[in-house]
């Protein structure tokens, strides 16, 4: 060792001019590209910001208050309730809020890894919350809550219901399918492969369409399945097939020695999978799983095909209603913004989760 232990690493002085020269003006082509980029930014960013914020109308109560030249956010404000709840009756909307609140608040303990009863809480949460939320939203007359039929559900609330049920249903099913596809038992293997390949081979829009047009043909006349339930089942089955392949990728990356060690210790098949293999495999494929979740979230807008009015459809319908005709840009920009918030949120959460898991193993 030639360097003494007290020696510090050399401090690199960040020189702004040098950074510019090295990164943006390192040659004639780079210089030209930089100038073009600067010109484009100068040309487009100020007008967009102006339209979105500085020249936009924020206050008022009707389209008469909108100034020309900027966005008119009054439109969004006026229709906000409808965007959130669809045609859910106004006097019952507290139920949706309470459902959302309980989903969030009851989940808080899950984020404290030190909590001793965390596993039990998680099981309780995933069993109990769906029932509570279903009761709050649907009512069914139980404990005096009047029924709000699913025809009246809509807007962001409906989008979130489909996405949440889709994710919560598709992930476990996808995991089972992935395990089944690797099963030693030929019957199980063939069933899983057929299932996965079938659902991957048809577009979601076809699945939704078939669920509303074809399914009733096969069912006895008096038996009708709720439209929303049909959509939920379609989304779950469809996305589970994708997730199965993502999870299978993770399973294949786990070395054979892990299975052997688990078996040699006497763990059963399900114990080996649940305690040893899946925790490692799922960790490896978090990016792929979240990718599928994000796609699923955006795909929910396809339920318009069977006449459900999710968030996007609600916004779209508001832009073609006579009183706000001509404000479709505001509507679509707002819709894009909301979708982006949720998708970006999922993406950030998955990155944070990966970092936390990597840190805990310090590999």
């Amino acid at each position, binding site marked *: 060792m030639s360097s003494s232990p007290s020696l510090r690493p050399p401090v690199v002085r960040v020189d702004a001019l040098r950074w510019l020269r090295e990164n943006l003006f390192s040659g004639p082509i780079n210089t030209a590209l930089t100038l073009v980029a600067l010109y484009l930014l100068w040309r487009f960013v100020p007008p967009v910001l102006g339209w979105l914020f500085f020249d936009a109308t924020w206050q008022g109560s009707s389209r008469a208050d909108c100034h020309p030249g900027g966005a008119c956010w009054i439109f969004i404000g006026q229709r906000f309730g409808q965007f959130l709840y669809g045609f859910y009756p106004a006097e019952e909307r507290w139920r949706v809020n309470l459902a959302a609140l309980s989903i969030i608040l009851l989940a808080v303990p899950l984020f404290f890894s030190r909590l001793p009863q965390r596993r039990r809480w998680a099981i309780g949460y995933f069993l109990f919350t769906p029932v509570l939320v279903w009761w709050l939203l649907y009512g069914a007359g139980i404990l005096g809550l009047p029924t709000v039929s699913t025809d009246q559900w809509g807007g962001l609330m409906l989008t979130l219901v489909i996405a949440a049920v889709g994710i919560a249903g598709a992930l476990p099913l996808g995991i089972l399918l992935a395990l089944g596809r690797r099963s030693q038992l030929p019957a199980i293997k063939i069933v899983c492969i057929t299932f996965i390949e079938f659902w991957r081979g048809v577009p979601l829009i076809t699945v939704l369409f078939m669920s509303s047009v074809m399914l009733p043909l096969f069912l006895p006349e008096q038996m009708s399945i709720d439209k929303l339930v049909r959509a939920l089942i379609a989304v779950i089955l469809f996305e589970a097939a994708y997730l199965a392949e993502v999870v299978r990728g993770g399973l294949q990356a786990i070395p054979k020695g892990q299975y052997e*060690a688990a078996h*040699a210790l*006497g*763990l059963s098949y399900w114990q080996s999978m649940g305690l040893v293999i899946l925790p*490692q495999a799922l*960790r490896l494929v978090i990016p792929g799983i979240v990718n599928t979740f994000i796609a699923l979230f955006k795909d929910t807008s396809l339920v318009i095909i069977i006449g459900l009015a999710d968030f996007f459809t609600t916004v779209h319908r508001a832009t073609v209603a006579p009183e706000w005709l001509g404000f479709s840009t505001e509507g679509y920009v707002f819709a894009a913004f909301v979708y982006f918030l949720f998708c970006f949120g999922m993406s950030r959460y998955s990155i944070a989760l990966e970092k936390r898991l990597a840190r805990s*193993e310090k*590999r």
Partner: protein
Amino acid sequence: MELMEETLTRLESHKTQEVMILMEHVNKWYHDFHVLKDIDLTVMAGERIVICGPSGSGKSTLIRCINRLEAHQRGRIVVDGIELTEDVKAIDAIRREVGMVFQHFNLFPHLTVLENCTLAPIWVKKMPKKEAEALALQYLQRVRIADQAHKYPGQLSGGQQQRVAIARALCMKPKIMLFDEPTSALDPEMVKEVLDTMIELAAEGMTMLCVTHEMGFARTVADRVIFMDRGEIVEQAPPEEFFLHPKEERTRRFLGQILHH
């Protein structure tokens, strides 16, 4: 000569003891490749057996048949009175009695050292968590690694990981321990710490089957050395006899190769 006598008395004492592992005419094929050819082997309780032989001779396959990581197709394997069949209950019962240590440790990287050790006692033996942790710490202490209990396997050296793997297997209180080249993936300076742990285990009277080419270990610990070649048990003898007066030509050739390295 004295050593010889000691070994003989040891073998003598086994006669009154129970048979731990019985293999009769065991045959195994990988597709049409005959890996194990008519293996006959009896292991008494407390016996220490070292298995050696050239690469590909079927050593790993042999010991992996004992806890059913591989299935044999012909013959009989009886472990601690339980016959290995397709019956899942029998397989589970045998795996509870048999601990295994692998060449590449196969620790669970997502669990801490302590969790690696408590996993099977908690889930297979339904032991309360507190009790399992106390037990695990006791065994980790014995392999001198208790201070690392809350680290993850990836943070330990190879020798430390292999000692954790031994402790993990011991936590199930097995009657038999199988070792498949436990030191051959280790850097030379770590081999000794693992061998020392195994020697201690042998001194406590554990029934051990160990695939290894550590001939020093075989000399000090083994009751019997088994030489395998091309799926057959070619020769078996107490270590002195095995190393000094091998009977078979194949054994001599193998020993010549391995001892002159």
